[in-house]
């Protein structure tokens, strides 16, 4: 009987520990302040490599995907991919008009970086600079996809 009670107590302790350590809204991670320079990209086309997915060659497709609800990313000068959770302090980044018009632009942004399960998430509060499209990839890759 004592053994059963000890077992139950141990199980309860383990359950409590799992509950207390499980990630969730109640235990938000501490972000790191960062400044990132890079190109605003369509995360899916870039990470899946289904086509050439940066610069002017991919601009139209990047607008399509951002409008269609694919998360927008930034390909940093450090070659890291950042998933944008906020732009200019606005968390409405899915299908949003503001972010649609920035596709393929090179930007300098500042915000909070969260890293979770291999993904770098960026909550941008400040757009320091927007250089427009500087990657003229259409010279080499035409229009991706379909050529028109």
């Amino acid at each position: 009987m004592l053994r059963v009670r000890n077992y139950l107590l141990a199980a309860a302790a383990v359950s409590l520990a799992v509950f207390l350590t499980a990630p969730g809204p109640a235990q938000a991670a501490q972000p790191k302040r960062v400044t990132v320079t890079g190109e605003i990209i369509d995360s899916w086309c870039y990470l899946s490599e289904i086509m050439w997915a940066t610069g002017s060659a991919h601009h139209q497709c990047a607008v399509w995907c951002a409008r269609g609800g694919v998360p927008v990313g930034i390909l940093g000068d450090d070659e890291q991919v950042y998933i944008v959770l906020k732009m200019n302090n606005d968390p409405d980044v899915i299908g949003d008009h503001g972010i649609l018009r920035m596709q393929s632009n090179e930007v300098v942004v500042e915000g909070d970086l969260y890293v979770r399960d291999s993904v770098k998430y960026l909550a941008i509060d400040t757009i320091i600079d927007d250089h427009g499209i500087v990657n003229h990839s259409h010279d080499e890759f035409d229009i991706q996809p379909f050529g028109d």
Partner: protein
Amino acid sequence: MNKSYKSILAGLFALALFTLPGLAVAADSWGLPGEEEVRFDAKVTDVLCVLSGDCPPDCGAGKRVLGLLKADGELVLPVKNGGPFTGAVADLLPYCGTTVTADGLFTVNYGVKTFAMQFVKPQEAKWRRANQFVKDWAAAHGLEAKDKKARSWFRNDETIVEIIGEQGKLGLKDKGIEP
């Protein structure tokens, strides 16, 4: 066993193939980098909520990046659904805060793991193809999702037409560069 009885059994078997979870639904390979066909249970959540504690009650009403939080704590990022040029937010939003079974492909590239969701099954409900964006777009335009205009929604969407009209297909119209 007479012939009509055999026909009934064959019909029931065929029906079972199309209705039983796990038999008719399975992810198609897309040949992605580091691809893995997966099926898992997870809670639909707002990623910003999980990471920062900023939690609107409706997961952001479809305007925020959504994630799938597994029981083991892994936060999966769905970036794509089964439609053309569309993400999975519209498929997941109705189930904000609840657990679903998701079926699709993990892909790992440049050290980043993401998820392409092809099917989703809410609790106590049937499997659905993950193509809600096009269905919603079609409905908003008085069309069926199978209509040609809806299937090419990305060439017909008013906002896209407006932006590409202003910026050009290369985004360089203001610099006088157009295809």
